[in-house]
């Protein structure tokens, strides 16, 4: 258990590239978004964006292989920091699969009705910051959602 920067709420998930686990991660992310105080529709869309990023790792980076490692780190960061104008919910996804040409990540135009090519589009529409890097033999993807709305005054994000 490495000690971690103790800022904001921190949660790290390590999972295998098994599609059965997607709903498990969604269960956690949905609750975290609620705890962070996002309105209901945004909790759902942030959960979708993280799910799409995981789906792409499973399908493309690992080409459907099961049992490969994926790391998802989540942080809920307050506003008061240099270089960070906004309170935000940050997700960092790391995998050891094949790299991707950042141009591909841009997705396709949506005027043509055909299956596929929607995931990266969803992520772009939903998230406020997206950063991708190849780091050594890992893919590193950072997704940020701004918490523009005030944290609700409820006692809890309940489950």
């Amino acid at each position, binding site marked *: 258990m490495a000690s971690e920067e103790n800022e904001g709420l921190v949660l790290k998930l390590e999972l295998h590239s098994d599609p*059965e686990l997607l709903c498990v991660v969604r269960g956690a992310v949905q609750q975290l978004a609620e705890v962070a105080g996002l309105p209901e*529709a945004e909790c759902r869309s942030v959960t979708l964006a993280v799910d799409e990023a995981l*789906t792409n790792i499973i399908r493309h980076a690992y080409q459907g292989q099961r049992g490969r490692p994926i790391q998802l780190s989540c942080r809920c960061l307050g506003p008061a920091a240099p270089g960070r104008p906004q309170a935000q919910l940050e997700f960092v996804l790391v995998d050891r699969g094949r790299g991707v040409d950042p141009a591909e990540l841009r997705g396709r135009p*949506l005027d043509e009705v055909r299956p*596929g090519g929607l995931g990266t589009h969803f992520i772009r529409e939903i998230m406020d910051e997206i950063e991708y890097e190849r780091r050594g033999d890992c893919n590193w993807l950072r997704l940020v959602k701004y918490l523009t709305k005030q944290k609700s005054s409820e006692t809890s994000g309940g489950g």
Partner: protein
Amino acid sequence: MQISTRQSGKATIVDVSGDIDLYNSPEVRKVLLAALREERAPRVIVNLREVRYIDSSGVASLVEGLKVSRELGSRLVLLGLSQAVRDVLELSRLNKVFEVCDTEEQALRS
């Protein structure tokens, strides 16, 4: 996710509940294509009322059903979209592409 099929006159109704994601969207695709290609149903109604979550792979299965229905001259109708499903179709810019009904009667008659 649970998925099952029933007949109503000449229409085939596919009831789906739960979450549609990468894990189970292949099953949705399989059931839709079987109804269209094998059963040759002239109208396939996909009842999404109990679907709480759908991701891009689920949307892709629906789009594939739609394309095949067009090829075969049959119809694919979506029934009972929850706000969650509605939002995702809107994100996909596909809310105008699908035929959508609120009630089973509408979907059968439309």
